[in-house]
């Protein structure tokens, strides 16, 4: 068994031109597939960053909300009504909006402002510097140390700015789990200060964040909120909702899907075609092997090994190339959103397996059909 694998390996690798073409086809396809799907994963993750960072278990919102950034203000009674539902441990408001800051050097910069419930501070970030209580200090804001923080002119504790004629002062630097999508810095303050500083319409609550008493209570809470005409979703469902929006309601997901499919088809045809030529060129030799006494299953093993070896090597090269490219890009571009997830790698791996299986099949079919008699006749 080992011997015929060595033979198969040498037949493949010593045909340098075709082996290189095969590897390039697969590497290229894997590279494109992983690049496409990881920029997609990265953007989806960024799009859900507020949901990830706030971390609340249940979010109550207007049913028309599509993404976390496009919140639709709800009347204040919603919070009280939710609070009185059976199974709710507590329910607090979250303000989410954008505002334009005037920095101390006179420049203007927009920022995402998150207003945390004054009593519970539910959804508060971990602090790298400063104390969380200082958020209650006069004009106190926390700034998130994410890839956008430098747009605020290297802020530190004590840095001041203006927000709609109000003064703001940085009282803490917060850590972040996920970077945002929109290229804006993020500031936290209290709910009351947020609605006081940022002029809004009649309604001010963006979301009501709910902590259930137990996991079993979640369904009941959802049902009750629905009766009120609003929507309650878990953290995971909210992320799912956001990613569904980007996947299906914007052209972004469809385009990525099409590009990924095209990479797959290009890879499939380049490697399938090359492998087929490789088999055709060696067909009389496979016939001679059959005449000498190779059994069909041995020839199948040789071909599957050749296809599998090429596919896996190409996969390794493609993934390696992606990792290098994304690594380089992240070093230079703080906003570069790509993340390679196991899902991306898995999708590319499945595609490569399909390429290998497809190539093996056409090769095996050809080789099983060849009659040693035809080799004999020349």
């Amino acid at each position, binding site marked *: *068994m*080992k*011997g*015929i694998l*060595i*033979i198969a390996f*040498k*037949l493949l690798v*010593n*045909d340098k031109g075709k082996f290189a073409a095969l590897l390039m086809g697969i590497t290229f396809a894997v590279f494109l597939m992983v690049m496409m799907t990881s920029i997609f994963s990265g953007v989806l993750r960024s799009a859900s960053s507020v949901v990830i960072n706030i971390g609340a278990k249940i979010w109550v919102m207007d049913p028309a909300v599509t993404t976390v950034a496009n919140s639709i203000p709800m009347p204040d009674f919603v919070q009280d009504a939710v609070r009185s539902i059976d199974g709710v441990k507590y329910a607090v408001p979250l303000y989410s909006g954008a505002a334009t800051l005037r920095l101390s050097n006179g420049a203007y910069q927009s920022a995402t402002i998150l207003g945390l419930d004054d009593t519970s501070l539910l959804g508060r970030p971990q602090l790298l510097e400063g104390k969380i209580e200082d958020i209650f200090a006069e004009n106190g804001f926390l700034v998130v140390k994410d890839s956008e923080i430098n747009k605020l002119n290297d802020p530190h504790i004590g840095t001041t700015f203006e927000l709609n004629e109000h003064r703001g002062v940085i009282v803490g630097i917060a850590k972040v789990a996920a970077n945002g999508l929109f290229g804006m810095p993020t500031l936290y303050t209290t709910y009351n200060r947020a609605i006081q500083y940022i002029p809004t319409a009649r309604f001010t609550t963006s979301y009501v964040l709910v902590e259930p008493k137990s996991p079993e209570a979640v369904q009941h809470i959802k049902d009750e909120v629905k009766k009120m005409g609003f929507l309650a979703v878990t953290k995971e469902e909210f992320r799912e909702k956001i990613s569904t929006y980007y996947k299906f309601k914007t052209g972004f997901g469809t385009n990525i899907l099409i590009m990924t499919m095209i990479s797959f088809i290009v890879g499939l045809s380049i490697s399938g075609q090359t492998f087929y030529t490789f088999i055709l060129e*060696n067909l*009389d*030799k496979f*016939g*001679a*092997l*059959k*005449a*000498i*006494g*190779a*059994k*069909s299953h*041995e020839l199948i093993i040789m071909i599957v090994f050749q296809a599998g070896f090429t596919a896996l090597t190409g996969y390794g090269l493609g993934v390696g190339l992606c990792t290098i490219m994304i690594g380089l890009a992240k070093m230079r571009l703080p906003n570069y959103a790509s993340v390679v997830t196991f899902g991306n790698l898995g999708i590319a791996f499945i595609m490569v397996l399909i390429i290998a299986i497809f190539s093996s099949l056409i090769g095996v079919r050809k080789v099983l059909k060849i*009659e*040693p*008699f035809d*080799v*004999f*006749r*020349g």
Partner: protein
Amino acid sequence: MAKTAISAQQVVKWFGVGDARTNAVKAASFEASFGEIFYLVGPSGSGKTTLLSMLSGILKPDSGSVYIDNADIWTLSTDELADFRLNRIGFVFQDYHLFPRLTTLENVAIPLILKKYDWDKAMQEALKYLDIVGLKNRAQLPPYKLSGGEQQRVAIARAIVSQPDILIFDEPTASLDGDTGKKIMSFIKDDILNEQRCVLVVTHDSRIFEYADKIMKMEDGVVTAIENHSEM
């Protein structure tokens, strides 16, 4: 009397359907013994290759039987037949069919690899046979770097490396010049043939008839004569 190596009885092969249907081999019968070089001669299209394929377990006859060393080979299963060819028959194909991407040595070792020899052992053994055909110093070259006569000898080394008792040559001298062809045949007669072997040669090259022990003539699928050459 020498032992019978190959015995064909009323072997028949048809090809094609309808108007294109041809009777390539018509009830051919003959016997060849161990220790002899047996020639199959006849014009192109007379059915030599077809008959040879049926004798060597490559093409199933429509009727009739083939006995190799008294075993009825066409009662074997496909895999048994493959093992039979691997162990008992050595082939030298008309256009050699050597792998250009393998070295000469690896080409020779292929039957041993198929017999599941350990790689290093197969190479060692193959080298002995390359030595026998006088090409030990070409072991690491790809076959296409060798001359036609040398390639023929590599193919012979591959055919004998597993020590088969039946050797089958299809037009061994067709693509060689007269001198090289004769050298190959005298090499086969002097160094390859022995009392435990039967060498079957298909040819229409009259320059090498002198090396035959028996010559069987075919015409249009029919065996027309079997002559004992040494007595001629």
